């Protein structure tokens, strides 16, 4: 039960990361390496502020804003200085490594007794718990703390998802979707595609940093290495979500990214329980994403051959 709730809670926190990756990767078709740095940036800013005694709302908001700044820098490097998108992201990611170290002061910063969203939900959940700290959930006893965290994180992800859905149906949000589709058209309609891409990357990295800030509070510490592999992790969630919902509609894709993140976390939790070496986790994730990206094309090619027609790939 605690394994399930832990995975659900963690999956919901990382759903924000998946939504951020969805914005950069799927809406703008931009492989944004900045994300790996801004996860840690969000965690570092939030942790540093919490330890310094600031309230969780301020700390989390500041972390989100820091992510937006990181995304803006990548966007400016790419659109103003015509740097290759991948390289622009890598530069900012590398620079963030030092910046994060400065913010945290050391490579691992525990939150200790500092007040955070986790301690807040904990004290809220304790009101509903019995004297063992448990509540009844789906007919079983569950830790009120874990359940509270899951519900809190899920609500958070749901609200962000709804806000994104509304945003991408505004004029500027729709123009962003069109920019990822066809920047030439957006220029011909009088919008500055560079500005839209930069704003999109800022939004994406704000979400990623928000996820990092919540992750730090969830885990109880910020770590300099916590961003490594996060881009692929988010991508895996997005891809799972796409196959879960099987629709190209924006609303389904957004919900899919959240469900994908939770499901992927569950799969990982189960795999680790069955004896997967944690050291192999990133390798397995990378191979999974590779297969998910390549398989649909291979299947189509195979089908074409089986049907006797020439493969049109």
């Amino acid at each position: 039960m605690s394994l399930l709730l832990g995975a659900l809670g963690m999956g919901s926190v990382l759903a924000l990361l998946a939504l951020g990756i969805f914005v950069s990767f799927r809406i703008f078709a931009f492989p944004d390496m900045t994300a790996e740095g801004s996860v840690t940036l969000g965690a570092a800013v939030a942790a540093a502020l919490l330890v310094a005694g600031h309230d969780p709302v301020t700390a989390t908001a500041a972390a989100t804003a820091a992510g937006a700044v990181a995304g803006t820098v990548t966007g400016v490097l790419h659109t103003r200085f015509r740097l290759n998108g991948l390289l622009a992201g890598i530069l900012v990611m590398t620079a963030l490594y030092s910046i994060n170290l400065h913010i945290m002061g050391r490579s691992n910063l525990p939150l200790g007794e500092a007040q955070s969203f986790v301690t807040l939900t904990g004290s809220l959940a304790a009101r509903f718990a019995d004297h063992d700290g448990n509540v009844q959930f789906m007919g079983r006893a569950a830790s009120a703390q874990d359940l509270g965290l899951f519900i809190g994180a899920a609500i958070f992800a749901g609200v962000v998802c709804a806000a994104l859905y509304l945003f991408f149906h505004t004029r500027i949000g729709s123009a962003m979707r069109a920019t990822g589709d066809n920047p030439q058209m957006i220029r011909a309609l009088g919008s500055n595609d560079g500005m839209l891409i930069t704003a999109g990357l800022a939004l994406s990295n704000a979400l990623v940093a928000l996820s990092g800030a919540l992750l730090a509070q969830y885990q109880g510490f910020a770590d300099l290495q916590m961003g490594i592999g996060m881009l692929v992790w988010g991508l895996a969630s997005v891809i799972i979500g796409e196959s879960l919902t099987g629709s190209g509609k924006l609303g389904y894709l957004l919900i899919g990214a959240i469900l994908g993140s939770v499901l992927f976390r569950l799969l990982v939790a189960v795999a680790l329980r069955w004896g997967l070496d944690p050291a192999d986790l990133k390798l397995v994730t990378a191979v999974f994403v590779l297969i998910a990206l390549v398989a649909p094309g291979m299947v189509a090619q195979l089908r074409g051959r089986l049907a006797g027609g020439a493969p049109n790939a």
Partner: protein
Amino acid sequence: MLEIQGISKTFHAGTVNEVRSLRGVNLTIDEGSFVVVIGTNGSGKSTLLNAVAGTFPVDTGSIRLAGKDITRWPEHRRAALIGRVFQNPFSGTAPHLTVAENLALAERRGLSLGLGRLLPGGARERIRSGIRALGMGLEDRLDNAIGSLSGGQRQALTLLMATTLRPQLLLLDEHTAALDPRSADQVVRITDRIIARDRLTAMMVTHSMQQAVTYGDRLVMMHRGQVVLDLRGAEKSRLRPEDLLQRFEELRRADLVDAAAADMLRRRYV
């Protein structure tokens, strides 16, 4: 009114791939004039349109449109004055957005975007009636992704998008060249109808001699980055495809003579 004065453009200057695409083009187009631009491959006709649209900065000369000097304006700023349809049907629309969403974005061409809803109540009906006027039966496909439509349908919609807000200038860059003959004919007819209805100032590049003689009130022929023929009024309306083909043949012969002369000079003096 569009005033092009002495614009020139050289690509890859100073390298072996140097191409002098425009060599001092002067062209003034009156308000409400529909100019057909023809020319051989590499004559600079598409480059001329792109120079006006702001795809690249010109090396020399100036471009004025509707009384404004737009020579230094970036592409997206010029788009407030200029509507465009491209040769490639994929260039003018965002494939994953619906027909209605594409047109709603076009209704904001050159205006600030803001956080308002893209499709507020009433927008759909307005868009639907605009599409109905195309007469292609697309008014029932408002919620289809535009990428699911055929090239001809997309070009017709791009044309509608370019003219939804009345542009000071409409640029059509071989916008029927990638279509099958029937769709091409349909799209060019719609084009002519919209230009006449809204009294638009337009430049249309075409490879079709038939289109060149049938449409427009003025014809400009480009060759080697310069305007070599400029016909209007009665001269334009009397024009037949054979006349144009003969002109092209003359240009080709002149080029051959030039090349032969250059070759002779090289052999004698180098």
